[in-house]
């Protein structure tokens, strides 16, 4: 046991973004951090929506409750990250989340497709959670202190997500027949796009040089692949193929039709009337 004092793992409604002064930040570095934050926030926002679709229709009531918690955590993280970006750019977090065009979102292509079967959902979440955990580890000692602080809060919750998803992966992956078949086909379909979480960012070199990010995205991708493949091989599941993350992993110039559907849903009330509160 460590001497770490127990701290609350979830704060839903009260914003817990630390106050900070960023007036001394180099404008180019500021823009690069803001861009990194947008990619992370959009990832959490989109997966949070995908997960919340299971609320009420999951395979069992216990899992309805669990997936709702995951969804809330992810939306909570998205909120923190949008707020952190907004503090750098002067934007409004809700406008960022709900008032962009579909081609302006920066989430990884891994998250583009609908939730589909429980096997597909578990596989995608496991791939995303393992990748996200490597990315968060690369930011845990960030020289941009507010980001390190926020990442610390997020990691405390993500640890439990990973435990939950890994238990499901093992349960389905070791059960021959349909469960294992569902995982194998989802892995085959998703592995090629899973590295999109590590798609190169325009300001990446500057972020690494300034110590905001510990290593280039391609290096983080390699670290993730090696860790994830160790687990997949232990379960005798298909490993993720080698290769550097594609440059267009977060490019939505032609948005995926499933994301357009999602966008139409989540903007349907928000964009009913300009300038009102909901």
């Amino acid at each position, binding site marked *: 046991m460590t001497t770490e004092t127990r701290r609350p793992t979830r704060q839903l409604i009260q914003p817990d973004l630390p106050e900070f002064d960023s007036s001394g930040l180099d404008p180019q570095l500021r823009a690069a951090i803001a861009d990194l934050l947008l990619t992370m926030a959009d990832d959490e926002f989109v997966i949070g929506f995908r997960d919340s679709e299971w609320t009420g229709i999951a395979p069992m009531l216990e899992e*309805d409750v669990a997936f709702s918690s995951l969804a809330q955590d992810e*939306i909570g993280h998205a909120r923190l990250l949008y707020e952190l970006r907004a503090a750098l750019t002067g934007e409004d977090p809700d406008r960022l989340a709900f008032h962009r065009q579909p081609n302006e979102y920066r989430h990884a292509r891994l998250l583009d497709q609908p939730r589909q079967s429980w096997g597909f959902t578990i596989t995608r979440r496991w791939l995303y959670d393992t990748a996200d955990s490597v990315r968060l580890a690369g930011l845990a000692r960030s020289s941009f202190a507010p980001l390190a602080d926020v990442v610390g809060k997020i990691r405390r919750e993500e640890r439990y997500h990973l435990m939950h998803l890994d238990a499901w992966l093992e349960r389905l992956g070791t059960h021959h027949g349909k469960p294992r078949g569902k995982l194998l086909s989802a892995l085959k379909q998703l592995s090629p796009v899973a590295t999109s979480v590590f798609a190169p960012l325009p300001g990446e070199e500057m972020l690494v040089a300034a110590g905001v990010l510990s290593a280039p995205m391609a290096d983080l991708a390699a670290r993730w692949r090696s860790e994830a493949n160790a687990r997949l091989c232990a379960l005798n599941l298909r490993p993720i193929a080698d290769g550097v993350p594609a440059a267009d992993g977060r490019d939505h110039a032609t948005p995926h039709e499933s994301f357009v559907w999602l966008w139409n849903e989540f903007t349907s009330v928000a964009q*009913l009337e300009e300038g009102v509160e909901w």
Partner: protein
Amino acid sequence: MTDPLSLAPILSPDDRPTPLFADPDLTHEQRYDAFVEHVHGGQKVEARDWMPDEYRTSVLRFVEMHANSELMGVLPEREWIMRAPTLKRKLALTAKVQDECGHAQLLYRVAEDLGKTREQMYQDLLDGKTKFHNVFHYPTKSWGDVGIIAWLVDAAAIVAQQALRDSSYGPYARTMKKICWEESVHIMHGRDVVVTMMNGSQAQRDMAQEALDRWWGPLMQMHGPRTDPAKDRDLFWRIKEKTGEQLRQEFLSTYVPRLWEVGLYPPDKELKLDEASGEWRYTEPDWQELRTVVTGHGPKSQERLDFRRLHHDQTAWVRQTILATPAPA
């Protein structure tokens, strides 16, 4: 609002005096009479206690209907989880619907103790053999519905549920304490959604009023027609504490003034407080509509059950996997 710290601890059967009706040497009639005296004296019945068949069947039917309602109540609101217009609303609505799933789980567990499996209760619901509350048979049409449901449907429900915290069946009474605590947070969320709209544009105010207009009828029907308390067996067994009309009056007393305060008007010209009797007068609710709806002929009854059946079938393989013996490592 319930203070969660005040929740009564769950006593093990060993920590309370042995009830008289537990004595196996008594005749059935003596045990039955002692049981009636026990519940009429305000004492609790626990899951492993001896109980008359009629009591067991009545509690099971009551709790099962409640569990079904929580489960089916998820569906109308679930549609709006994807459409919540701000990050804060998205979080609050997801948490609220999660609570309802959690309530269904708690209540099915209470019911299971009485001798019917969760799977069987689920199957009877899907087969249309058991019922769920009338309000969950109706469509949702706008964000206004999200506010009206969370505020008023939950308020009408909590009026009944608060009375169930005194239920004679101990496991149910304790579960209701937790549920009431969470429902009272839903009411605050719903009221906040409605008040925000009423402080907004004319279109937003119209949306809230239009939602209230549609929900008022089902809300007034929710607690059922007036009944003769002397003939109500659920009252006799102290499973519930109040009649439907008492609950409806409580709901009106608390919430009509609050609606008026924010500028919303229930669509009933007869609605007024009779100062002399202290009772609310209202247009007689459409009891034929209530009977039609709860027997599975409401505007969304079959669509919602079909939706449940579809997802239940699609995820059957997951439950089979979980219930199977795990493969050796």
